[in-house]
């Protein structure tokens, strides 16, 4: 093939430009550590990346929501534990002071203690986690119990997503667990009745609260058990979500990230190629008859 001067110059310019382009691409990949930045870099991987980002994000969001729900339910369970302890103590007092050997003074002192237990229970049931009252159902903006123990919340059960589209209960129905809706006993009312009977030195009245206290203790235990089982489900789901999130991030990294060693090797290769292209171009320009004539 006949090689003209312009052919030499154009070919040198083209080869140098191509080598420089490859060098720039290799340099960008090595510097950013990203292999797939635009869809055209790898259309298949880019498409999977979008789904993976969405899945990983969804898993992380579900995990975060489960964390919040778990904190609330944990707080509810702790409160119920305290209620349970208060009921047990009230039952002890009721059994003890049902005995005729105790007098009005002892019963008045016990009435004070039961009133204290009532107030303590009330305080725990009006507990807030973040901005929500734990036992208010959907009425979570105001304390669910007033000073008399009347329930101001509703029957709503909060839910949390454990998997895409799958929800589980994330709250305790205080109207059932504490107020006896649906056939149980009003735990707070029972404590108040016991306190009143003790204060009035009414032995029969004190004895009359024992059955309700037993039922109440069982009722609260059942609610705690339900809360515990929900917590177990939520913990398992949260672990699964976090694990799925990590898996997603790993998949994303495999899809989008550059292999650092490979990228560095390609950068070195591209640099060498650019250097060679420039050297070859410089050498090819030199021999000319103009210098000899």
């Amino acid at each position, binding site marked *: *093939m*006949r*090689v*003209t*001067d*312009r*052919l030499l110059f*154009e*070919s040198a310019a*083209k080869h140098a430009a191509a080598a420089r382009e490859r060098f720039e691409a290799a340099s960008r990949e090595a510097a950013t550590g990203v292999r*797939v*930045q*635009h*869809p*055209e870099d*790898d*259309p*298949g991987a*880019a*498409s*999977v*990346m*979008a*789904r993976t*980002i*969405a*899945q990983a*994000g*969804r898993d992380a*969001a*579900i995990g*975060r*929501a489960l964390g*919040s*729900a778990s904190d*609330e339910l944990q707080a509810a369970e702790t409160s119920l534990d305290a209620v349970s302890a208060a009921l047990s103590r009230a039952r002890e007092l009721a059994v003890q002071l049902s005995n005729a050997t105790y007098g009005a003074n002892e019963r008045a002192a016990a009435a004070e203690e039961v009133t204290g237990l009532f107030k303590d229970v009330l305080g725990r049931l009006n507990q807030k986690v*973040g*901005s*929500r009252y734990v036992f*208010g*159902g*959907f*009425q*979570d*903006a105001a304390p669910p119990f007033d000073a008399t123990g009347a329930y101001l919340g*509703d029957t*709503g059960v*909060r*839910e*949390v*997503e454990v998997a*895409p*589209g799958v*929800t589980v209960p*994330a709250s305790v129905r205080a109207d059932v667990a504490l107020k006896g809706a649906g056939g149980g006993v009003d735990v707070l009312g029972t404590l108040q009745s016991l306190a009143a009977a003790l204060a009035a030195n009414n032995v029969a009245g004190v004895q009359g609260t024992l059955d309700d206290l037993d039922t109440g203790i069982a009722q609260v235990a059942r609610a705690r058990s339900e809360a515990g089982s929900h917590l177990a489900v939520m913990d398992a789901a949260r672990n699964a979500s976090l694990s799925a999130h990590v898996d997603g991030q790993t998949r*994303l990294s495999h899809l989008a990230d550059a292999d650092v060693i490979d990228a560095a090797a390609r950068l070195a290769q591209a640099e060498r190629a650019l250097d060679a292209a420039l050297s070859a171009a410089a050498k090819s320009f030199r021999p*000319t*008859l*103009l210098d000899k*004539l």
Partner: protein
Amino acid sequence: MADLFALLSWSSSSLSAHRASSATASHNLSNANTPGFARQRAHLEAALPADAVGARAYVGRGAALSGVSQARDAFVERQLPAAFAAASYSDARANGLSGLTALDPDGGAGLTNALDAFYGALRQLTQTPGDRGARQAVLAQGRVVALAFNRAAQNVAGARDGLDAQVARDVARVNDLAKSLAALNRQVRVEQASGAVPNDLLDARLRVQDELVQLTGASVVPDADGNVNLQLPAGGALVNGDAAATLSTQKDAANRGHLAVFLTPPGSSAAAALGPGALGGALGGALDARDGALATAERDIDTLAYDFASAVNAAHRNGVGLDGVGGRDFFAVAASAVGAARTLAVDPGLLANPDQLGAAASAAGVPGDASNLFAIIQTESAALSGGLDVFDTLAAAIASWGSAVDSARTAQGRDGAVRDQLTALREATAGVSIDEEMIALTTSQRAYEAVLKVIQTTDEMLDSLMKLR
């Protein structure tokens, strides 16, 4: 019989021939870097008829210039127009599709991350539906989604508008060049009628022809009169002899106001719209990029924006805000998918008052009920108009765009390599080698000097003759 005066006369003719040879080499050297220039060769031949000396011998009459030709390889030249057209088409298409970031899978403010963050904020709100801060966070993420769609739509529309500007510029250039080619056809015909070959005029015409082919993808149809006629890919004549057609553009309302190209054939005043595929070259490539992959991306983004916002709105309307009122939209979205992404916004009333966010299924559930938030979250996995959910629809659009750009780049590389190869072959034949021309120049110079020596010798011979007594 040749006398000394005839010898002087023949030498003078030879000097002219060698001067022409030097001038040709000099012309070649001067145009070594002129695009489209084909090196020329001065052809010298022995002057005829030779002078008869006696009955049995002829004495030559020196050298004469028989002509100046240009070096062109007809085989390569015949293949070049198609190669130019294909490479320009691929270049324009690939360049038109470059630089778009709207569908980057992991762009910081891209659609994927914005939609992901929106659903994440909704999920967070399910645990504190009455919390105004969390409500504000959902609205903020809603705005991010709307802005991501706005930006994506502007990005694609900007690319399409840019190609419109390129089309308008190319159309004006085509009209200028077509007129030039028609005029050059006329000049070439006139020059060739005298029997001479107007090499530089042919180069000028080839340059115009090459550029027109690159711009329009027209095929070259030479005729017996020496004209170069150009025919557009769909069959319309762009240049016919010394008459040129005219291209024009008009906004096409059916194509979002983008420019449509019309052809007014030579000698006609009726402009006909050129449909898809009627133009090749850079114009065809730009139109293909604009109305092909970019239009598809624009439709995909618009449809996704419309379907997504409509689905969220439908779910949101079923919920009630902290004020107990329902039936409100979350997004302000266009009435149809066309242009939906560009105008998408969070409903202004909702944006001004986060209490209106319909988290609860009923007024009785306010503020703690998040049932309707779960229903809104379900739009994430609900099938949209294309049968796929939000993220699968987005992933399909990303894959479609990526494949289109990838295949355009592959075609660009392939067609560019063919063009470069043929251009190199053209250069190998027609290009100027400075070494060759320096040798040719030196050769002519030497011959010129030799003829001068002949003149000097003849002069001395004449002088000697004159001094005879």
